[in-house]
């Protein structure tokens, strides 16, 4: 776990510099920042406001996935909506039940926003802003209750009456305001523990609070990314990641093995996707690899007949499995137990070819693991599912 925390710390500061923590720590709002490129999609930053609201310490939150704050009363549908928004890399505002450390549930408005790399258009982080929602109090005869109903319908009016302050003051410090509201809640006798299944709708005020907080956070991140040169922006400014859609990128990113996708419809049949494991195996960077044909991996002692075999298989739209001598960037060679297969998209036609590499010297000593060839085929299967599903027309990646 410790090494993961180091990875997290590093990835965040490499992108935004060490000073970003200070700037984010100054903000009163409750928010978390996650990194979809780290296994498990963990939280890499949690604000003061979030820790106060949830009751957790920073150590208990960093490295965890956001779903640890969900619980029995969290609607599975809302979980699904968040999952789909992440998969499609788009904004979302949704009411959802979360749980504090002490186990008490509460409704909140969750506002999700992707942060894109300016360089290649990939999502670098997701920012999640949490605004607690006042649950609509049940109707009772008392005057408090009548006024309380109007709190949800038109929060501004009631709050101004009670606190005699103007909107600007109210919006300034959300945490202070929250405690005022919570105090109100106990006066009205709202039973916080008895949550009903109708989603609690956020008021305009709450939505605006979320949007404002998000804008502030994104400004900070954009600014600090300029310090490191790894610029980010809130809209996808450039889809330099090639013809692959966002949703497909995310799905492929979950596959841990070494593989590449090539596009047979483009001249030269270039690589359009390379997994991290592939880059690690071959020693190249992503930039060096994208756009190249796979033959750059071959070298002086590579058997031409094997190369020909690969070419023939592709020409006849078939798969093949070969053992080929390949070379890393540092010119060292390795035996590549390579499996190639055509991959179709939702139209039923071949969209890509996948090449899954296994370095032959890696043998499985653990009898409880899958045979290497089955593991290799499972990569093919996972990619076939991902390519087919992501091209069915469901997702429209909105910036």
């Amino acid at each position, binding site marked *: 776990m410790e090494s993961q925390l180091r990875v997290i710390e590093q990835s965040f500061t490499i992108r935004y510099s060490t000073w970003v923590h200070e700037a984010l720590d100054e903000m009163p709002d409750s928010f978390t920042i996650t990194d979809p490129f780290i296994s498990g999609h963990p939280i890499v930053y949690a604000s003061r406001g979030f820790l106060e609201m949830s009751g957790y310490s920073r150590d208990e939150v960093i490295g965890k996935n956001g779903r*640890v704050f969900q619980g029995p009363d969290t609607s*599975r*549908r809302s*979980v699904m909506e968040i999952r789909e928004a992440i998969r499609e890399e788009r904004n979302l505002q949704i009411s959802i039940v979360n749980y504090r450390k002490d186990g008490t549930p509460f409704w909140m408005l969750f506002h999700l926003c992707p942060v894109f790399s300016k360089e290649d258009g990939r999502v670098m982080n997701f920012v999640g802003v949490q605004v607690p929602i006042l649950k609509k109090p049940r109707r009772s005869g008392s005057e408090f209750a009548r006024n309380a109903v109007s709190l949800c319908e038109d929060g501004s009016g009631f709050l101004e009456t009670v606190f005699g302050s103007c909107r600007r003051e109210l919006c300034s410090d959300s945490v202070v305001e929250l405690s005022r509201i919570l105090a109100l809640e106990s006066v009205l006798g709202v039973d916080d523990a008895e949550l009903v299944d109708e989603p609690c709708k956020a008021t305009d005020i709450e939505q605006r609070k979320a949007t404002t907080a998000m804008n502030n956070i994104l400004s900070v991140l954009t600014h600090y990314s300029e310090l490191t040169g790894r610029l980010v922006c809130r809209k996808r400014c450039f889809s330099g990641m090639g013809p692959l859609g966002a949703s497909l990128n995310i799905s492929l990113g979950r596959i841990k093995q070494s593989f590449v996708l090539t596009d047979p419809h483009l001249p030269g049949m270039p690589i359009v996707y390379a997994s991290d494991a592939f880059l690690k195996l071959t020693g190249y960077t992503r930039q060096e690899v994208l756009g190249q044909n796979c033959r750059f991996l071959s070298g002086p002692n590579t058997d031409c007949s094997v190369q020909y075999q690969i070419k023939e298989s592709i020409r006849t739209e078939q798969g093949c499995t070969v053992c080929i001598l390949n070379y890393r960037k540092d010119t060292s060679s390795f035996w590549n137990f390579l499996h190639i297969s055509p991959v179709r998209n939702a139209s039923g036609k071949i969209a890509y070819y996948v090449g899954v590499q296994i370095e032959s010297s890696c043998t499985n000593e653990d009898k*409880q693991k*899958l045979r290497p060839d*089955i593991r290799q085929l499972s990569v093919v*299967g996972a990619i076939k*599912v991902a390519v087919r599903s992501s091209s069915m027309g469901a997702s429209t990646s909105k910036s």
Partner: protein
Amino acid sequence: MLRIKRVPTIVSNYQKEEADDGGARHGGCGRNCLNKCCIPGSKLPLYAFKKVNKVVNGKDVLDCENKEPPVAFLDSLLLGEWEDRMQRGLFRYDVTACETKVIPGEYGFIAQLNEGRHLKKRPTEFRVDTVLQPFDGSKFNFTKVGQEEVLFQFEASEDDEVQFFPNAPIDVENSPSVVAINVSPIEYGHVLLIPRVLECLPQRIDRESFLLALYMAAEAGSPYFRLGYNSLGAFATINHLHFQAYYLAVPFPIEKAATGKTTNLNARVKISEISKYPVRGLVFEGTDTLEDLANAVSDSCICLQNNNIPYNVLISDSGRRIFLLPQCYAEKQALGEVSAEILDTQVNPAVWEISGHMVLKRRKDYEEASDENAWRLLAEVSLSEERFQEVKAIIFEAISCLDENGSTTGGPDNDQDVKPQSLEEIDAHHGMLPGNQECLVLH
């Protein structure tokens, strides 16, 4: 006796039409099947899942998601073995070569054009008025599939850990449960889960088998891997107990549907009505153990079976949400009450279709697929509101009266007998059930 004619789906390369199966089978098959003739000495991979009372929504499950997953392991095993069979040519067609799309619109219905799924064969007659029918060994069943169609055995592990044995002998004494391919797949990875295959159980749900299916959903750990069940009379064609499953990485329309009126069965299972969806049904969600959730659903299914009401079940969200859908389409069809236009599409509304995934045989239907068409078809499948409320009441009455510790007698049919003393155990928090107020929920 109500019957309809259908072209049955071929799920195994060893499945022949009943009509051809004159009984003049040459004995001693030599086909490497799952029957006594071929099994001794056979080996299959065995995936043994951790049979701990999993906490469904709690943090314990989540902790292990960050470690190197046994969760992803089942995925890899299934996908890898499935792709292997693809390359060996065991499927009747390449399902990834079938066009598919999400129909633009509010609901996200999914349509696929699959002309190869049903060859022009002679339709067979199916009896659709009886949900419970005895197993008939002369008809096709899963002991007749070739072993190459079986991907692995799926059993509970002896100890607390997931275990995998690449080459485990098949224990005939403790008939294993197996996962086999469906040679006419609807989607990539389409498999059949066959509980205790050698026991030749008929197509009817029991607590143990349903729990097995739920464990599989949880083990696969992917919200895009769902399991489904069709009862007889709800478009199951093989009367040998089986569930189906496959991968599709988009949400199903039924999963996106809102839920209406909710009832807490007890502190650990809640049941809601599906709303704003053409088919009326119930959603079960558990907050504690898989077993609680499984029992609630299987007891409801048993109740429907005993009342001769056909139904379908969809296990979604890695086993956290289960949809129970009683239906009446086959009966309507037999009575001639379905419009010709809908009949012409030859869509048999089984669990996948009801969930919103439609496999269409004609290009015309595929091109013209729309929210309205899908809705219209599914609306025919649904029970009416009055009938649904009746059925819901029957279910609630049955499951709330059950002894909380489960049917120790082992026979699921005994569940209708209420044990008087159990009524005295009162759940302090939740006793709310529609209808029969005397029958209180047990804790």
